[in-house]
């Protein structure tokens, strides 16, 4: 059957089972939006306030559901506005297909109106990208884009489509998408035997569970291995929820804002087992003094991660879920050891703590949120102190429960992401834990949440400063607070009401529960809670830049 390029795009989305897309129209995508209009009963288009919001929403949707997120923008500024969202997804291995309009083929390269070389711009932040100049290639490229985005180590793929291609006709025949190839185990039995033997002979093993464990759906295998061999488990920020935060073997985050227990354990371990993690600088800090007495085992799907940031003695490249299953079958069950007791002792001596001095504390807010939601909410975050408090004081028990820009550290990510997450998981409570600085960056997406009647909660930990940068200025720059005081006249409660959301102000700890209860009761309106906290509350522990991770400041 002959279809226009625009119709082919829509048909290809249907082939992939896409029922929700996020976007913002414009000249170069008029034909695509026309086709979307005709398909409006099958594909729901979420119109955001800004293309960046659409990209973060597609990302949040993907992280919350595991399905590939789709966003659409026009050429030129529409496309460039997606870039931060694409880069965010790239750094955190999130499957996404970004569709951009492009000027007609005859106008390419002539600095035409709203022309930008978006494939050139996004080359370093996509798994792959395409510019489509021939309608006959469109369907094949769309299918390949979805396959690449979701297979192996997932990531964003951009498809840039010239406007004349969306109007031209080509023969189209529906093709059922091939199952995403389940990557084979990838390692030989001898390597698995060796890995198990190394684990069996280790006296002080530690597991680092990263975001890859969640992506691989290997949470239960992870749990089985840790429990069978009684191995303490720490996680990266991306790995939160890949191992239950309530489990007795869980030691908390590791690295720059790791717990004393995790960081001490890593510094004393004789076998460091990193699973689906990439040894980011936020984890290892000083590479020369990271896990100094340990052999390192690294299990990951991406061979390029092996040996990139640290020397690895036991690399296992392949499907994490299968590898963990096989290793688990080979390791010896172990009783609680001296090592486990030592870990317990550290945990008792060095819990995450904060002073309750009668003022409203961010830690307390997050902790109450955890308790009031019975640990069952999806939490998105902005970036900075809010992100770390959300990571430390909410206990995540399931993969895909904590949604945060880990690699790129994108301020302004959380609101879009929570919109996407709520649309992907309509039955869940979705809460964006925000800072006032990050929230203000992309707060226009409140209009989107109101329009689509999303009962998301935005909990602003409002300290009227750019808190994380201020914290660094206080600790490492002798208190020279350069450009971090943002005590603007903005009234966030009034702002929420102006957008059509509910606004609540909280200034005292006694008001926290009532505010959350009211917010949690909302079923069709977003609720913004403006928590006024002190500007000098800090995130502890913190490892000073360049120091080994066991030299942390506990506050």
């Amino acid at each position, binding site marked *: 059957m002959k279809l226009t390029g625009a119709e082919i795009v829509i048909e290809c989305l249907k082939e992939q089972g896409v029922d929700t897309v996020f976007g913002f129209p414009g000249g170069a995508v008029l034909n695509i939006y026309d086709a979307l209009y005709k398909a409006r009963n099958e594909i729901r288009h979420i119109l955001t306030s800004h293309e960046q919001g659409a990209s973060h929403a597609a990302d949040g949707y993907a992280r919350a559901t595991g399905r590939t997120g789709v966003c659409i923008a026009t050429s030129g500024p529409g496309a460039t506005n997606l870039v931060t969202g694409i880069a965010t997804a790239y750094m955190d291995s999130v499957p996404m297909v970004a569709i951009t309009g492009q000027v007609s083929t005859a106008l390419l390269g002539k600095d035409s109106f709203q022309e930008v070389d978006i*494939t*050139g711009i996004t*080359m*370093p932040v996509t*798994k*792959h990208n395409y*510019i489509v100049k021939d309608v006959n290639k469109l369907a094949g490229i769309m299918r390949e884009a979805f396959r*690449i985005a979701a297979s192996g180590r997932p990531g964003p793929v951009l498809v840039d489509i010239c406007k004349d291609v969306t109007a031209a006709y080509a023969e189209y025949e529906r093709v059922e998408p091939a199952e995403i190839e389940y990557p084979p185990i990838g390692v030989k039995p001898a390597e698995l035997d060796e890995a198990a033997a190394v684990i069996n002979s280790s006296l002080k093993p530690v597991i680092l569970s990263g975001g890859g464990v969640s992506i691989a759906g290997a949470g239960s295998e992870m749990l089985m291995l840790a429990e069978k061999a009684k191995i303490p488990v720490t996680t990266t920020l991306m790995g939160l929820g890949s191992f239950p935060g309530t489990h007795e073997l869980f030691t908390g985050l590791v690295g720059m804002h790791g717990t004393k227990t995790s960081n001490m354990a890593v510094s004393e371990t004789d076998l460091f087992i990193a699973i689906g993690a990439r040894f980011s600088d936020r984890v290892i800090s000083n590479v020369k003094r990271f896990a100094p007495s340990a052999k390192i085992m690294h299990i990951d799907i*991406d*061979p*390029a991660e*092996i*040996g*990139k940031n640290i020397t690895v003695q036991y690399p296992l490249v392949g499907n994490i879920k299968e590898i963990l299953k096989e290793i688990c079958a080979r390791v010896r069950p172990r009783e609680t050891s001296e090592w486990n007791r030592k870990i317990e002792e550290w945990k008792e001596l060095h819990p995450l703590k904060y002073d309750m001095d009668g003022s409203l504390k961010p830690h307390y807010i997050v902790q109450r949120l955890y308790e009031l939601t019975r640990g069952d909410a999806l939490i998105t975050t902005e970036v900075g102190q809010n992100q770390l408090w959300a990571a430390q004081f909410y206990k995540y028990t399931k993969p895909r429960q904590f949604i945060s820009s880990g690699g790129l550290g994108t301020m302004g990510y959380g609101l879009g992401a929570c919109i996407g997450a709520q649309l992907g998981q309509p039955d869940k409570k979705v809460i964006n834990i925000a800072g006032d600085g990050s929230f203000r960056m992309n707060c226009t997406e409140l209009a989107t949440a109101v329009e689509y009647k999303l009962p998301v909660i935005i909990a602003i930990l409002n300290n009227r400063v750019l808190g994380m940068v201020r914290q660094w200025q206080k600790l490492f720059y002798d208190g020279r607070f350069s450009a971090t005081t943002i005590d603007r006249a903005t009234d966030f409660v009034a702002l929420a009401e102006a957008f059509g959301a509910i606004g609540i102000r909280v200034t005292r700890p006694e008001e926290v529960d009532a505010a959350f209860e009211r917010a949690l009761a909302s079923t069709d309106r977003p609720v913004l809670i403006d928590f006024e906290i002190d500007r000098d509350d800090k995130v502890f522990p913190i490892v000073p830049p360049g120091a080994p991770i066991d030299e942390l400041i506990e506050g």
Partner: protein
Amino acid sequence: MSKHTLSVLVENHAGVLSRVAGLFSRRGFNIDSLAVGVTENPDVSRMTIVVEGDEYIVEQVSKQLNKLVDVIKIKRLDKHESITRELSLIKVSANAATRSEIVQLVEIFRAKIVDVSKTTLTIEASGSGDKVAALEDMLKQFGIKEIVRTGTIAIERGNRIIKVTNNEEGEING
């Protein structure tokens, strides 16, 4: 730091070269030379990339290249098991007094004079990078006005071939 030669089969698409070059620049790898041309299969191009770096760098380069969707196969060529060639065009100052001496040198190096003017000679030289460098060194005394080099290309000795379909030891498949 030593030099390593990688043979890379890539899809013959527009934009592949910039993907490869972009990867090198953003990851901080140094390209000594890069030569690219289409192979016996018109859908496939072959790049010969000479990289300067230690074992860690070469391994990272290979692994990162391999993540590019358009890269089909990478093989690191052993210096002793492969033939490398580079073509140079060298324009050198020449007058009646020096011309014959230059011609003699060119013969010794089995290079060719490809253009003559009253004040210059243009020499075509091919061979391993070392040989071309030696000739260049000898020509300096006459005054080199211009040099153009193609960058190294390389092929394995004997009956071994790098193809999209076959699979030999030491190859990384994309």
